[in-house]
């Protein structure tokens, strides 16, 4: 028998939640239990009293599944609000990455030159390595990592996407 999957769309969801124990497990568990995908997930508390956290989830799935993901998230008691940034309108996505590259001679110079073009900043240097810090939309980070791969890439750490709607209104 065949097991088929429908065509996927990428969506960025901003979820505000009560900052209480187990909420992250509840959300990630919901995704595994119902067979949804998580491409990236970031979380940090965002209020002065540490009572509310904002979780940004990048997911993918057919439109009907994305709708279910939003509905299932909204059903959780500690969830305040789910905003699908992808459908809500123009929005900004940013991600931070740390990228370690080793090399000497021309490769090292080329790495530094490319870093400059991408506005990546060296945050650690030895005579044979750099750690670059780069911030930007995920595809920019992807491109930079792809270039560094040819110039002695050793290690990558990425934060995952944080997103926000453009314009004066909040999500």
């Amino acid at each position: 028998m065949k097991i088929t999957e429908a065509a996927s769309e990428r969506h960025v969801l901003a979820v505000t939640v009560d900052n209480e124990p187990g909420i992250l497990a509840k959300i990630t568990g919901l995704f595994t239990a119902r067979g949804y995908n998580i491409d990236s997930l970031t979380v940090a508390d965002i209020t002065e009293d540490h009572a509310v956290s904002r979780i940004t989830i990048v997911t993918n799935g057919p439109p009907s599944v994305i709708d279910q993901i939003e509905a299932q998230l909204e059903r959780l008691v500690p969830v305040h609000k789910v905003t699908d940034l992808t459908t809500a309108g123009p929005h900004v996505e940013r991600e931070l990455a740390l990228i370690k590259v080793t090399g000497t001679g021309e490769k090292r110079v080329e790495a530094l030159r490319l870093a400059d073009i991408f506005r990546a900043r060296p945050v650690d240097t030895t005579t044979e390595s750099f750690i670059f810090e780069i911030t930007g939309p995920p595809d920019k980070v992807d491109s930079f990592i792809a270039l560094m791969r040819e110039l002695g890439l050793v290690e990558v750490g990425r934060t995952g996407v944080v997103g926000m709607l453009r314009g004066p209104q909040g999500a």
Partner: protein
Amino acid sequence: MPGQPDKAPAPTSSDTSPAMSGAAILVHELVEQGVEFVFGYPGGAVLPIYDELFGDERIRHILVRHEAGAAHAAEGYARATGKPGVVLVTSGPGATNAVTGIADAWMDSIPLVVITGQVPTALIGTDAFQEADTVGITRHCTKHNYLVKDPADLAATVKEAFRIATTGRPGPVVIDIPKNVQIAVPSERRALTRAGSHRYAPQTVAPAEQIIEAVELIANAQRPIFYTGGGVINSGPEASRLLRQLQDITGAPVTSTLMGLGAFPSAHPDWLGMLGMHGTYEANMAMNKCDVMVCIGARFDDRVTGRLDAFSPGSKKIHIDIDRSSINKTVPVDMGIVGDCGTVLAQLIEAWGSRQAKNLGEWKARIAGWRARECLAYPERSAKNPGMIMPQKAVERLHALTHQRNPIITTEVGQHQMWAAQYFGFEDPNKWLTSGGLGTMGYGLPAAIGAQLGFPDALVIDIAGEASIQMNIQELGTASQYRLPVKIFILNNEYMGMVRQWQELTYESRYSNSYSDSLPDFVKLAEAYGWKGIRITEERDLDDGIMRMLDHNGPVIVDCLVAQDANCLPMIPSGAAHTEMLLYGDKVDGTMDDEAKALV
């Protein structure tokens, strides 16, 4: 905690003595919530709470024989009374044993508050004796759960737990309380710091423009149908009354899921019977051919829809549900209305106003044609056991001899459950308690105990199978202890009948492990527990046996031996459409392709 002041007359909610321990606060809050019964089983990690309950006149503790029984009994109580069921179990195995009942309540949207003991906070995470990560284990089978680490949070947590369990789409809520939190005396009471206005606010009223649009759709339908579910029952008896009223003014025929039986009276001429896998031919055909379907508090379960791409292909679908995530989950609908069934029904009736219903004569005539197939007819005699009682006949006679007493019927899970749904007519809500979503064998006996406690004078019958009943048979002792006159009516065919039926239909009658070997003598078993035991073997003794069961003022097991080869029909085979039902007399080749085999 000797000398605690809370044993005095119940203080008011504002007057809670600061000297109360966590356990005393818990009991006090349960009383505040109007809890009559706690279904539980003691153990090390809940001893402080049990000590508070000792001699407490306000709450009656029902001692079960296994924690699964506690959860199912609480479910039965909740389904019959509409009030939340409360469970109290210890840590570790106490909690894990209750998980099946919690998952059952989750699937069927039954309000439960389950209090579990936990090892002291300092020992959490050390693999201590009887430690289990209860909050982790129950995270995805509860509506919400809590680990209370500070007794100052306890009162507010219990309050919120009851609110969450009983409002919106009801469901189970677990409160895990470490033993030291039960003993500690908090110096203050905290409100839940997180209980802001954004947290948990279910929508009950539908937007007016949606109601107007829905009324237009219904009023202009040529072939409307109401497809109702457990949400109508959960919404309260008023919702069932409003459903009957809306049906009356629109004239649309009504079918229901297993969970929704009783919301609409089975004696009504526009009642189509249950729909779905073992639903009636007329209900499934009407679902397939309708032009406007109004789904009220049901969730397009796979047992209801059959093959999804062939499900009611030409209809406009309106779905009323309090849970937004139920809408468009498996079946895309034209109009999703988020709201409480009762509230939305009242809104629809008001918006309908004094409209005249369309003449649905042509539609009703087609339905009459489908009814004429008499899909629930069954052979007089079994081919294998021609002398034995047909199980359908047993349920029909049970209904005939008891329906005037308006009984509460519980079931286990399997063929007997479907026969009960098909042949026992229900006229009122909250009279039919069955495990629909999770399909939990062993549900019926403890559920009957819970229902009987809620309604001490009611006739409560667990229609059971000989296999299912053994899954929580230990609860016979609970009924004996509390003098509950529960009746168990076993349709004994010596097989896990539904498994056997599927093996006949799908695996060429290779009956792998579905024979109920080494059965106990149920009559002697009944007597061992102080129950009355009755065995019925001949059809001519059927009525007499049922009457003897009814006449006995105490608990009774009836072991009714029935034909072993009877199948539960009609049936939509897995992977088939509503229009492809198997009826009695249809030839079955006993195999299926892998695509169909893979479906449950």
